[in-house]
């Protein structure tokens, strides 16, 4: 369970004001915000890499700092470019390193890859030579390798091909079925209505409106978009 209470973030001239909501176990909560910086900033605060926030962030009822060295959730950030991960090593070697060096669970990692129909021939290729979607699969598998009850995702699916999006959705639903609390930060209202259980609309740094996905389908999405995201 992920809980945000009275979260204020003030970073340079950008801010989030009194943000508060709760993501229950076995729920996908989609926080819709038009501005990229907004979801990036919130993602950094949630993952603990930015400490400019005040208010409470609780993971399973415990503040993030109480989790010690273990991360309080799985954090999946948006991937900009395959070239950013050019390790000059083969993918197989990189995965070996992630498992042996960083302690990622190899079984979990390969389970995720299997769900994505990953082909083992890619293990011999270098990361820079991987097709974009395959790289996304590996990245996702590495992020999801640690077993965790909470998952925070920052607009991961943006720009991905439909095929990968479907695989990703399948994975999210699997995780949801396993009782994970999933918070998705994004800007795509159509994707939100497709995947989420609940959607929160952010405008000018404030959470203005929350709706169940079931209700969302009955609403005029175009109207919502113009009202909250334009």
């Amino acid at each position, binding site marked *: 369970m992920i809980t945000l209470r009275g979260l204020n973030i003030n970073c340079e001239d950008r801010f989030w004001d009194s943000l508060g909501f709760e993501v229950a176990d076995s729920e996908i909560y989609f926080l819709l915000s038009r501005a990229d910086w907004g979801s990036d900033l919130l993602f*950094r605060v949630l*993952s603990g*890499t*930015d400490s400019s926030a005040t208010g409470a962030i609780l993971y399973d009822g415990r503040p993030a700092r109480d989790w010690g*060295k273990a*991360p309080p959730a799985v*954090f999946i*950030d948006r*991937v*900009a*470019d395959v*070239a*950013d*991960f*050019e*390790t*000059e*090593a*083969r993918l197989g*070697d*990189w995965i*070996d*390193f*992630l498992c*042996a*060096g*960083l*302690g*990622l669970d190899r079984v979990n990692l390969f389970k995720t890859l299997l769900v994505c129909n990953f082909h083992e021939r890619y293990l011999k290729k270098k990361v820079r030579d991987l097709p974009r979607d395959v790289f996304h699969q590996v*990245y996702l598998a*590495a*992020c999801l390798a*640690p077993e965790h009850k909470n998952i925070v995702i920052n607009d991961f699916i943006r720009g991905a091909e439909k095929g990968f999006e479907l695989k990703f959705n399948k994975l999210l639903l699997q995780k949801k079925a396993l009782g994970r609390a999933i918070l998705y930060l994004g800007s795509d209202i159509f994707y939100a209505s497709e995947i989420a259980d609940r959607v929160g609309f952010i405008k000018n740094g404030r959470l203005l409106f929350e709706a169940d996905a079931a209700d969302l389908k009955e609403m005029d999405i175009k109207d919502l978009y113009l009202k909250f995201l334009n």
Partner: protein
Amino acid sequence: MLAFLRFEWRRIFCVKKNLISLGFIFLFSTYFVLSGVDEYRQFLSEKKIFLRYEREKVSHVVNYSQYGGFGFRILFEAPALNLFFINSNILQDVESNIDTFEMIEVESSFKGNKLFLKRGYFKDFAGMPLIFGSLFMLYLGHVALISSAYLRFIAVNTSLLKYYVMTTISRFFWMDLFFIALSVGFFYLVGFWGIFFSRQEQSNYFFCLLFQILFLNFFYLLGQLITVLLRFRKIFFFWFFIVWFVCVFLLPEINRLSVFNQSQALESAEKVNLEKFRTLMALEKKFRDYLKENQSVPLDQIQKMQKKFAVQYINSTYLVNTSLESRYLRTVEKVIADHERQAILFPTTFYQFMTGEMSGKGYYGYLDFMDYIMQVRNRFIQFYLKKRYEENNAKVESFVKGDENVFHSHSRLPRTYWIGALVTLLYGIILFILTFRPLKRQVFQP
């Protein structure tokens, strides 16, 4: 740690361009070691001819007056270790003539194949780490941390500091191992050509290797820092080349120019020669005046006077001239000491200074050579005067009984070696710390 070591091994040694670069370094090192061995062996065979020539020359000298005029040459013999530093030296293939004239000259021959021998630059085994090693380490430092996006991904699962430290240590381990294996391998390999090193040379070589490792690690850390300061931008290669050029070529050149400017304050060597010449001429004038005044004096009386003047020469003029030469040498030594102190300030300048001294043909090798020349000259003058005035017409006996006409130079570490090594280590630590601060900022607050 093992996982990091394994991963970095693959990142370094399983990448084609790295292998090409390392192969290139290996091939060039092999070539320079072979050419060093070849030059050393050529020197030994030329030394034999030199010694034979000097022996035969004496046998053709008619009397001691002639012997004093011709004198004999002293050959500068560098230690065997010089084969690794054949182009890092300050002195060329030099020799000096010991005779009764006042001038002490250190000469280099450009006759025959020596005309085509172009010393300097980096064309020896020690030049490989300086030029290609530093460039390669700078590059490895550049690619080590990959990108801020990658580090952000890593930082979710492990501490950034741990990753930074472990990656750096692993890369140091493999690259240092490569350069150590290369240097140690060649050091023992030359034994196959019958070249062996003394204990002192061995220990000097390993201390030199230690500094080389510190020096290369410095470049690795510099590469990391530049990449982070330029926020992993692709424009990097331009800066990368500029920094390398400044470190490897510009700073040593500035250091060299600085020592040259300092040396301008030295009195001209010609002026010293002139001063010595005048002192000698003053004595000769006295003798000529004596001859003019006493034209009717019998020959044996003149010879007695000549001997008296010779004793006077040894006791006054010669001592004055020797002290002039010694004083001049000590002022040169001061300039060298200043140069050594300046060289400590930066790893490349100190590396160049150190390799010069390691070759045995560095600045201190020169000072030793000059001291040796003056010692031998002193003994020769006494030998000459004794023989000249006591048995001038007897068969000329050579002054050189053993190998006095060969100066055996020693390979040495600079006296400031430990200071130089500590300064380089300090630079490394500073670079390591300086890199981490902006890196953390970039990863956590993009």
